[in-house]
């Protein structure tokens, strides 16, 4: 008689894809709005994007309950920060906080694949990309989630980031203009939707720039 394995898993993959692109003075963060489980769609209208601070927006895919818990923890920590420092957290600071929060649960991880986007202290776009246990890096663009294997190579082709090993260090921002970057994101999702069953329904795009923050939506294939 073989050893009995656990039939119950505390995790589930609710699918979805996230993308973020940093520009010279803007940042675009996007994610689809489909939530699935197994081969079923639970809902076609669930936002994976969370505004953590004035200049920090996080998009996360993976296990939805963990994503939501992570968003709440970060929002609570940000509130405390505001009480203590009388100012909003900067994007790089939030990036470090997210990394620490994820690593805190290193031995029972948040099954969340995150991209954090925003404007740094100089007003330049910044994107941070994470794995489930908090390893992170500042990059010019990134994607995570079920469709990331389809999107990332395309973004590499269009936007190739400078190597972080270069000396002098080169800025990791894309030369694209804001409307061009938004169009690129729409193209990424339209393609990923074709081949990834967990991506589709609707695309939510959040744009952060000096004028503030705004949202845009685009319909995606529902099959």
């Amino acid at each position, binding site marked *: 008689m073989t050893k009995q394995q656990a039939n*119950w898993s*505390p*995790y*589930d993959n*609710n699918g979805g894809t996230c993308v973020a692109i940093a520009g010279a003075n803007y940042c675009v963060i996007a994610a689809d709005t489909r*939530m699935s*489980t197994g081969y*079923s*769609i*639970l*809902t076609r*209208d*669930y936002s994976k994007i969370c505004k953590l601070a004035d200049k920090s927006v996080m998009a996360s895919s993976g*296990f*939805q*309950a963990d994503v*939501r*818990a992570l968003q709440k923890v970060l929002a609570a920590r940000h509130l405390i920060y505001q009480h203590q420092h009388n100012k909003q957290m900067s994007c790089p600071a939030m990036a470090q906080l997210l990394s620490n929060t994820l690593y805190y649960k290193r031995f*029972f991880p948040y099954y969340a694949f995150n991209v954090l986007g925003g404007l740094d202290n100089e007003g330049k776009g910044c994107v941070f990309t994470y794995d489930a246990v908090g390893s992170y890096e500042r990059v010019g663009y990134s994607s995570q989630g079920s469709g990331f294997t389809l999107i990332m190579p395309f973004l590499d082709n269009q936007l190739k980031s400078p190597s972080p090993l270069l000396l002098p260090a080169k800025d990791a921002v894309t030369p694209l203009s804001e409307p061009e970057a938004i169009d690129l994101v729409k193209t990424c999702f339209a393609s990923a939707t074709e081949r990834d069953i967990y991506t589709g329904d609707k695309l939510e795009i959040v744009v952060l720039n000096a004028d503030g923050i705004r949202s845009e939506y685009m319909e995606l294939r529902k099959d």
Partner: protein
Amino acid sequence: MSVSLSDASIYRFLWVYPALQESVERMKPVGKHSLGASGEISDFQEILRYLDELILYDNMWDDGNSLGPKEVHNYLTRVMYNRRNKFNPLWNSLVLGGVKNGQKYLGMVSMIGVHFEDNHVATGFGNHLARPILRDEWHENLSFEDGVKLLEKCMRVLLYRDRSAVNKLQIAKITEEGVTISQPYALKTFWNFAAFQNPTVGAEGSWKVTITGDSLSLPPSPTMGDSSSTVIDYGNRLDI
């Protein structure tokens, strides 16, 4: 499984095969809202006890304000998620419906804390059989009667196709004023489709014996063109 209407929410729940009791109530009013569950009934009863306390403390404030369905849904989500974190889940899929300040709300929470809000939700097989029907036929201005008909249509499909379903169900109607849960009733079903009669006759591996004279003989094995086929008259179907 439930749908929400323009100013009310209604629900249906099929009663599971009662092993110990005559019938099992899987839907209960909770304050002005209604909570339904599939899965472990004992865990559902414990959740009802938690909610009793929650509603009690809310009422004790006596401040003219009461917890809306969004708040109760959030509370349930936290409870389910925290139990999952301790590897001791409440083995339920919960559906919560309510109306507050004219806004209708319908939410679902699973045993591992996955939660969402939508115009129609379902648990278990309902996700596979009923949601597609609801996606097609739900619309914003559904009247109560039409909503009931739509739910009955879904429940009938589930009754036919989910082997663990029984023909006994209740509807909950939730409005701003409160909850009314109907008495349990049965759906009209039609089982006289030709394909349902003697479904295993001549099936692969079946043994049907006819006695002719002194010898036993088997009926001829069915070949492709042999089996009687009936045109199913969908005009006769029960869309009542």
